[in-house]
């Protein structure tokens, strides 16, 4: 694999690393606050931002990746969303059970 750009990727790697650590601290802090129904969405939002950072920059989906790789990533996430989204839209809308 050739490097996507001539400049060193190290500043980007360390910036992502710091962002991931800050995100972890933020999740723990947010869990101690009473956000009403929003505790779980906030925790999942932070987790998704962290996972996206890892995939885009540490797994190099953003740079230096083929279209085919991006297609596999998008397809995998799509089917996961189908699994979780359709299942939970069923269970979450059953007032009779």
């Amino acid at each position, binding site marked *: 694999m050739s490097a996507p750009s001539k400049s060193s990727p190290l500043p980007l790697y360390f910036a992502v690393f710091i962002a991931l650590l800050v995100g*972890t601290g933020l999740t723990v802090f947010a869990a101690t606050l009473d956000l009403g129904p929003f505790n779980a969405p906030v*925790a999942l939002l932070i987790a998704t931002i962290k996972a996206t950072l890892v995939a885009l920059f540490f797994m190099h989906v953003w740079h230096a990746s083929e279209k085919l790789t991006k297609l596999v990533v998008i397809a995998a996430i799509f089917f996961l969303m189908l699994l979780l989204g359709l299942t939970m839209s069923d269970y979450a809308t059953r007032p009779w059970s």
Partner: protein
Amino acid sequence: MPDSTLVGLHHEEEHHPELLHHFSDAEQQRDASSLGMWVFLATELMFFGGMFCAYLIYRHWYFGDFGAASKSINMAMGATNTAVLICSSLTVVLAVWAAQTARRGLLLISLAVTILLGLTFLGIKGVEYRDKFIEHHVPGPSFSFAHEPIPGREGEYANPQHAQIFFSLYFVMTGLHALHMIIGLGIFTWLFCMAWKGRFTPEYNTPVEIGGLYWHFVDIVWIYLFPLLYLIDRHR
């Protein structure tokens, strides 16, 4: 030189010894390996996805019991483990970069630190499991979760049966994640041996790269496991 004549008989032109015959060039071989790992990770995502789906359904049904059970897990250890895995992801990208830029010393150090961080993760996980065994929170005949208050509901106690479902999911999900970590440690030990022998060069470093993809994926799974298992209803 009989050796070079022999090589000349089999190979029309000079090429890298790691390039397999059915690929036209090193770039194509690298892309094929990388795509193969991504397809494997897609199947892994569906594998873990099924467990996350089961978790979400039971959490939706038994939210109070899950909140009470979640409070009994050591949050500090979970948060520490998250930080340990994030540090190991950094050392993995450093290893890939070192292999691509022919920095042998940095490559070996990064791989060794990754292995040490992986072992640290498993050690902390082991202490956490030990606590669960001592507290009788392991699902089975000796399971006990009596008189544990439900967070935010005065005078209500968690149903032990429902709490047992939480702990079953906790052990299966973190256990399979730990199994992935153990496999990852095997891969990284192998990578370290190959790097020690000087097999990786800027022209050929695909094993480090796709081994890294696997490691980062396992990190991403933990990024979701931590808030979902450890941080339910912590504020009450």
